[in-house]
C-alpha cells in the first residue's frame, strides 16, 4: 500500500487526501474547544459554531477595514472571545451545574444561544456569503515527484491549528490551571476537596473553549465562506468529530478530525461533493449507536 503510494499508483487519491487532511487541522481546532467545554462542565455547546462565526466576522472586518491578515487577527479574536465566553457562561450556564440533567439543559440553552447569535449576525451582516481573501488563498505549493498541489492557505491553517492545539495541550498538561482543569474533568467533587475553585475553573475553561473558537474563526474566515445561518451545518460536523474521538478528549478530537476529514474527502471524490457532509452525519449516527463512548472517551449519557 505504502509503496504503491510512493510509486505514484494513487496520485489522485494522495492529492485528495492532501486537500482534505490539510483541512483536518482546522476541524481539530474547531472541535478542541467544544470537547474541552464538554470535558470540564458536561456542556454540549451547540452554540460553539456560532461562536466560531462571530470570530470569523470579526476577522472579516479586521481584514476589510483594518487590512489585518486573518492569521494576525487571531490575536484580537482570542482575548475578545475569551471575555465573551466568560460572560456567556456566567449569564446562561453557571447555575444548576450540579443538578441532574444539567447536560440536557445546556443543550437546550446553547441551542437558544445559537439562535440568538444567528439572529444578531443575520441582522448585522445580511446579504452575501463572506470570506476573507488574503493573497495566499490563491497560491499553492507543489511538492513531491508527482507535483502534488498544496494550497498555501490550507497549509498555513493546518500549521497554525497544530501550534494552537499543542499549546492548549501543553497548557492542560503542565500548568497549575491545567492541572486544575484536568482534575475537574476527571472528578469534579474530588477537585473541590483538594481546593480547586471549580466555579472559576469552569468559567475559565468555557472562556478558553470560546477563545479556541475565536482562533478557529480567524482561520475559517479564509478557508470557508460563511453566512449567518450556515453554522448549523457545522454543529453536526463538529459533534461528529468529538463523538468519534470521545467527548472530552482533546487527543480524540484531533484524531477524529483527521480521520473524518480524510474519509469525507475520499467520499466526496468518489460520489460527489454533496455526499461529503453526509459522511460526518452518518459517522455521528454510527458512533452513537455502536460505540457511544467514542475512541478515547467516556459514554455520553444523561449526566
Amino acid at each position: 500500500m505504502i509503496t504503491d503510494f510512493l510509486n505514484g499508483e494513487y496520485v489522485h487519491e494522495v492529492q485528495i487526501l492532501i486537500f482534505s487532511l490539510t483541512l483536518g487541522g482546522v476541524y481539530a481546532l474547531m472541535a478542541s474547544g467544544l470537547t474541552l467545554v464538554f470535558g470540564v462542565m458536561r456542556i454540549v455547546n451547540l452554540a460553539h459554531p456560532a461562536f466560531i462565526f462571530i470570530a470569523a466576522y470579526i476577522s472579516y472586518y479586521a481584514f476589510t477595514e483594518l487590512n489585518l491578515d486573518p492569521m494576525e487577527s487571531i490575536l484580537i479574536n482570542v482575548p475578545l472571545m475569551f471575555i465573551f465566553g466568560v460572560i456567556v457562561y456566567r449569564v446562561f450556564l453557571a447555575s444548576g451545574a450540579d443538578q441532574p440533567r444539567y447536560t440536557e439543559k445546556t443543550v437546550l440553552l446553547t441551542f437558544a444561544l445559537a439562535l440568538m447569535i444567528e439572529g444578531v449576525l443575520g441582522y448585522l451582516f445580511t446579504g452575501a456569503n463572506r470570506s476573507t481573501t488574503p493573497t495566499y488563498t490563491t497560491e499553492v505549493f507543489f511538492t513531491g515527484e508527482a507535483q502534488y498541489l498544496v494550497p498555501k492557505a490550507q497549509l498555513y491553517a493546518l500549521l497554525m491549528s497544530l501550534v494552537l492545539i499543542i499549546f492548549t495541550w501543553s497548557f492542560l498538561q503542565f500548568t497549575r490551571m491545567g492541572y486544575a482543569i484536568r482534575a475537574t474533568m476527571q472528578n469534579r467533587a474530588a477537585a473541590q476537596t483538594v481546593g480547586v475553585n471549580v466555579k472559576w475553573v469552569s468559567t475559565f475553561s468555557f472562556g478558553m473553549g470560546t477563545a479556541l473558537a475565536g482562533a478557529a474563526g480567524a482561520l475559517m474566515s479564509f478557508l470557508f465562506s460563511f453566512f449567518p445561518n450556515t453554522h448549523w451545518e457545522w454543529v453536526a460536523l463538529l459533534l461528529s468529530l468529538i463523538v468519534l474521538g470521545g467527548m472530552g478528549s482533546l487527543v480524540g478530537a484531533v484524531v477524529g478530525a483527521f480521520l473524518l476529514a480524510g474519509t469525507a474527502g475520499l467520499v466526496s471524490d468518489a460520489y460527489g461533493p454533496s455526499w461529503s457532509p453526509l459522511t460526518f452525519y452518518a459517522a455521528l449516527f454510527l458512533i452513537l449507536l455502536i460505540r457511544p463512548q467514542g475512541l478515547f472517551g467516556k459514554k455520553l449519557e444523561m449526566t
Partner: protein
Amino acid sequence: MTLLEVKGLVAGYGSGPDILRGIDLTLEAGQIQCIIGPNGAGKSTLLKVICGILKPRDGEVIFEGESITRLRPDQVLKKGICFVPQERSLFPHMTVGENLRMGGYALKNARETRKRIKEIYRQFPTLKQKRWQAANQLSGGQQQMLAMGRAMVLSPKIVLLDEPSLGLAPLIVEHIFEIVRQFKENGITVLMVEQNAHKGLEFADWGLVLDLGKNVFDGPADTILADPRIQELYLGTRRVQEGI
C-alpha cells in the same frame, strides 16, 4: 483546646427534607473523633456541610473561633480542613504522583509540595513504588491510602474522613486505621464517619452517636463502647454477629 465547633446545624439536599435537624459537635485538637449511627442518620451530610460542599439551612460551623459556615470548599480547605470523601475521590486518569501533586494544589508553592510529597513517599513506600501508575489501576486499599496520603500533603489541621474502611477487606481495614493513627501522630486532628462502629471507636478518642439527624450521645470512645444502651441500639448487630 476546641478546634472545631458545630452548633445547631440544619441541612438537606435541594428542596428535600432536613437531613440534619440541629446537630452539635465539639472537636478537641489532637483528637480522633468517630461519628457513628445508622444509615441515613446524616453522618456524611454533616461532613459535607463542615467542608463547605453543602450549605446549611441553619446553624453554624466555627473553626478556631471563626465562623466558616458560608465559605466555599476551597476556602475551607485553605483554613486547614481537608475532606476525604467516601470512595471515588481520586483523579482516575492521573498518576499517583499527579494525584499527590493535586493534594498540594492549595499550597501554590511547588517546592513545598514536592518536599511534602517526598515525606509521604517515606511514610507510604507502596505509593512511591506506584508513583507512575494511573490511580484507577490501584487496588481498593491502595486507592484509599492514596486519598489519605493526598490529604496529608496539605498537612491540614483537621482531616474529615468519610467511611475510610468502606468496601475493604478486613486486613486492609486494619492498615487504613493505622494510617488514621498516623494522622494523629503527625499532629492532625481527625473527624471520621464509620459504619464499622466497633473498629472506629476502638481507634478513636471520642465518639458521637447520631440518629435521624440529631445527636443521641457523645463521650469518650471507650465509654460508648461499654455503654449497654448504645450497644443495644447502635452496635447491636455487630454484637450478635460477634456472639455467633
